[in-house]
């Protein structure tokens, strides 16, 4: 997205912006609306990822029954819920940071929620496999 044709708006920034948006996005030059929408869709994809973790935790607690010892099952459900919450919070942070970077023509920030996602999924899957195999 950042490597598309450079966008050179003629109108300067931020007039008419009010409240929360003004405070969080700060100055800079309003980016091409298409980039803003792309950022929004990426944000929504992260939110759905967070919801998938929530759904995983809820489903584990609801359906896993006696497959796992209760402590392990509840512990895993809690872990998945927590990872989902962290990703959801990180999604907004990232949305804002990307929006800010675009407004100042800076390189887009790296997504730190990506390693959270990978680590969370790997740990949860690892524990589940381990318990299923060795219990």
């Amino acid at each position, binding site marked *: 997205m950042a490597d598309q044709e450079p966008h050179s708006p003629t109108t300067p920034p931020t007039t008419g912006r009010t409240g929360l*948006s003004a405070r969080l996005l700060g100055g800079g030059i309003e980016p091409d609306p298409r980039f803003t*929408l792309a950022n929004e869709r990426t944000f929504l994809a992260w939110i759905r990822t967070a919801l998938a973790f929530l759904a995983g935790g809820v489903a584990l607690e609801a359906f896993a029954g006696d497959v796992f010892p209760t402590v392990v099952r509840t512990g895993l459900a809690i872990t998945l819920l927590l990872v989902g919450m962290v990703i959801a919070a990180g999604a907004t942070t990232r949305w804002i940071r990307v929006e800010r970077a675009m407004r100042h023509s800076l390189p887009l920030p790296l997504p730190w929620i990506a390693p959270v996602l990978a680590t969370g999924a790997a740990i949860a899957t690892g524990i589940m496999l381990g318990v299923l195999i060795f219990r």
Partner: protein
Amino acid sequence: MNARHSAVVDPGLQPERTTLAWSRTLMAFVTVAALFLRWGGEHGAVVVLLFGGAIAVALAIGATQRRRYTHRAQAMGQPTGQPKVGPAVALSAAVVLLGAAGLAVILI
């Protein structure tokens, strides 16, 4: 969606794709809501609150889809995109609260 509102058509269909992304997110909330109902047997009537919370978010998204699509379609071709922070912050907060409520029900 309502093409009459968009004077400028974006060949990349970005407003439409963004609206569809919101629709998928809405359905994800419905899925989570339905899963929460499965806790009823173990955790009792409190799960209705979890279900209701997730459904409320889905309804809020659904009720504002058309208005927000129109806003996006009109922003196409304008020099300014006017991103709104509010919906993003609210959506994240909703997911975090839903997760926290789920944690509370498990732990209490």
